[in-house]
């Protein structure tokens, strides 16, 4: 986890809490610091508090406790229209009674820019998203992808330093979504804007972001760059939520520095890296990625612990093979291998031994 010097932080949440009903906290003790120019994604299941955080930053919700700082200044008492933050909404929120150009011109008009400056900026913003020819259309006459581009252009046209995006690609089909992911990150980096992006789509989060904050239960569970998040999840929620993951439950038998032995519930033993287990005897969930499981014995250490596995199902997915196995009482254990020339196709019912490198297997909280 890269530590940010809070003095250099552009956006900062300090011990922020939010409650709607006075009984439950939707956001619990949020601390977050973002440097200028960063693309940060808030990822989490619905109800995890990520959108509330975004709304507090935009000024549509007030924090019940704590301080939000923008460029070093507290903004808790600044109304939304004075914060100068660009925002892209889930349903685009393009004003239906205005043309595309009028939509883009609106933030410039309320800033009292003169007509020629407005026209020039609108044109530049439209060209930026390759929609230069659509200025006179109404939003309803545009496709979803085009509306998305306009919404983006409108959030950027008044040159805000911070742009918030609330699941902006949720309504697009898969292909368009992937294209727009690329467009958004390209624009954000080209213009050097600081971006806070909210999504529940982990692929989006991993492909677009500099850093991802995984939200659950009103807290940031882990804040890390995408690769670190995927490969080194810090708790079992993150391990489960990001990517595909196999979980085996058991008890820590012994800890020796940065390795430990876990006795699974069926009695078999495996090696793992202790992440947030500290003492022998603790219950743990062991996490292992499907593509890091090995059943080719030649590739394993001689002294590595192995487990017996029964192949339940073989799923052909083209680029990869996917096997569902029964391992230590878990029938949903997934193993993936690349469809390489020497790949082995296991048949259902086959009994094999599987193993992995100890550093790929992480003993997390139960």
């Amino acid at each position, binding site marked *: 986890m890269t530590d940010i010097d809070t003095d250099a932080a552009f956006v900062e949440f300090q011990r922020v809490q939010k409650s709607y009903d006075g009984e439950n906290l939707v956001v619990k003790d949020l601390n977050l610091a973002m440097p200028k120019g960063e693309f940060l994604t808030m990822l989490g299941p619905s109800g995890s508090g990520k959108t509330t955080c975004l709304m507090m930053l935009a000024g549509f919700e007030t924090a019940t406790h704590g301080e939000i700082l923008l460029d070093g200044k507290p903004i808790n008492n600044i109304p939304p229209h004075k914060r100068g*933050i660009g*925002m892209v909404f889930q349903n685009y929120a393009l*004003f239906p009674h205005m043309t595309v150009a009028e939509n883009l011109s609106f933030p410039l008009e309320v800033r009292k820019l003169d007509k020629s400056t407005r026209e020039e900026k609108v044109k530049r913003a439209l060209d930026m998203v390759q929609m230069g020819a659509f200025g006179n259309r109404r939003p309803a006459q545009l496709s979803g992808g085009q509306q998305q581009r306009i919404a983006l252009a409108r959030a950027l046209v008044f040159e805000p330093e911070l742009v918030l995006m609330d699941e902006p690609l949720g309504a697009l089909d898969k292909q368009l979504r992937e294209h727009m992911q690329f467009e958004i990150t390209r624009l954000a980096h080209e213009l050097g804007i600081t971006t806070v992006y909210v999504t529940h789509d982990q692929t989006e989060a991993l492909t677009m972001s500099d850093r991802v904050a995984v939200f659950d239960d009103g807290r940031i569970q882990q804040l890390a760059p995408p690769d670190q998040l995927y490969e080194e999840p810090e708790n079992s929620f993150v391990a489960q939520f990001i990517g595909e993951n196999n979980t085996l439950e058991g008890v820590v038998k012994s800890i020796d520095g940065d390795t430990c032995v876990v006795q699974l519930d069926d009695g078999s033993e495996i090696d793992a890296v202790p992440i947030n287990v500290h003492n022998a005897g603790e219950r743990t969930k062991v996490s292992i990625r499907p593509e890091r499981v090995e059943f080719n014995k030649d590739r394993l250490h001689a002294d590595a612990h192995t487990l017996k596995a029964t192949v339940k199902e073989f799923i052909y997915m083209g680029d990869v093979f996917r096997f569902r196995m029964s391992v230590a009482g878990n029938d949903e254990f997934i193993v993936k291998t690349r469809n390489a020339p020497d790949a082995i196709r296991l048949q259902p019912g086959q009994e094999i031994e599987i193993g992995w490198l100890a550093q790929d297997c992480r003993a997390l909280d139960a």
Partner: protein
Amino acid sequence: MTDASQNAGPMLAADGTPLKQSLARSLRRQKLRALLLVAPLLLFVLFSFIVPIASMLFRSVENSIVQETLPLTVEALQSWDENSGELPDEAVYDAFVRDMVVAVDNKTHTRLGSRLNYEETGMSSMFRRSGRKMGKLDPETDGPFKAQVIEIHEGWGDPKTWAVIKTHSPAVTNGYFLNAVDMRRTPEGAQSQPEDKQILIKLFGRTLFMSLVITASCILLAYPVSYLLATLPMRVSNMLMILVLLPFWTSLLVRTSAWKVMLQQQGVINETLVWLGLVADDARLVIINNQIGTIIAMTHILLPFMILPMYSVMQTIPPSYTRAAKSMGATNWTTFWRIYFPQSIPGIGAGSILVFILAIGYYITPEIVGGTKGVFISNRIAYHISSSLNWGLAAALGTILLGVVLLLYWVYDKIVGIDNVKLG
């Protein structure tokens, strides 16, 4: 590739029949089904709404009673010049006696009398009084009649009487419509009514003006309420909605009578104001039996018809629009005026048209709280239907009212656009 598309001929369905034919057949069943589903309502509306209204509207021009009751007289009067100032000759009186004998026999002469009485006061009693004596005359033997008839009632010796009969003899007349706009049919053509009889144009004007005032005050009162309803959480807004709808479940008569209690000079409002010392006891507000009373009561009664369409339109305006506007730097007022308000216009449009059209034809409330100064044209129509029994005039007034509403609807469509009206 199927055979059908390879042939140059028409596309064929799988069973070999032409595709168009088989499509029409499959759609025919659907259309028939749709027709059957609406048939009961269609018939009901046709016989209980369209037919009666059409026949009522027809009464506004129908005038066959003169021709039917006095066929010979009408024919004989053709050759008489009503502008000459002289009485018609013996032939007309002879024809008149023949007609009257038949009419008295059938007792239709009094009806004709009251019909002509709308045009010339006194005709009704003239016909009634002359009826008995004229019925006893024998057309074949008792002639000549001119002197005898004038003897029976001196009115028959006035050329004006005959002019009225001749003027109103055509089977189709514009007389009722002329009456409805404070004019009348005379031998010299259409002329204005004497000034003391000119009330209907004024009444039309007042009806339109007051309906507009009522619509405007409904807009002003309903807009904030609808906004609140549309923005509150569902549970709270449903509760408040019940309060809005509550008046719907109370009888109109009860509500209007309640206003009578509230507004009268010894009523709740005046008593309270006097008690508070805001109004002197001898200067109590006159807020009933005049236009103010009608406007207050009708605004209250029609308010739900404004709130409901406004609410349903406002509910469809996502809060993200206002948020987007604010995030772009717009103040609360700019956001409302530039973003929210334009999108709520269809609701205002729908509510206004509903309230205005309901108001323009309203009857009970103005009748009860309107006194003489606060009544509408509909009260006049009701008067002619049930008291003066001048159905022709009532029908003409109704037709004009319908025409005005349709005209306004057309104007509204031109200005606002009927596509801009949404009920939800």
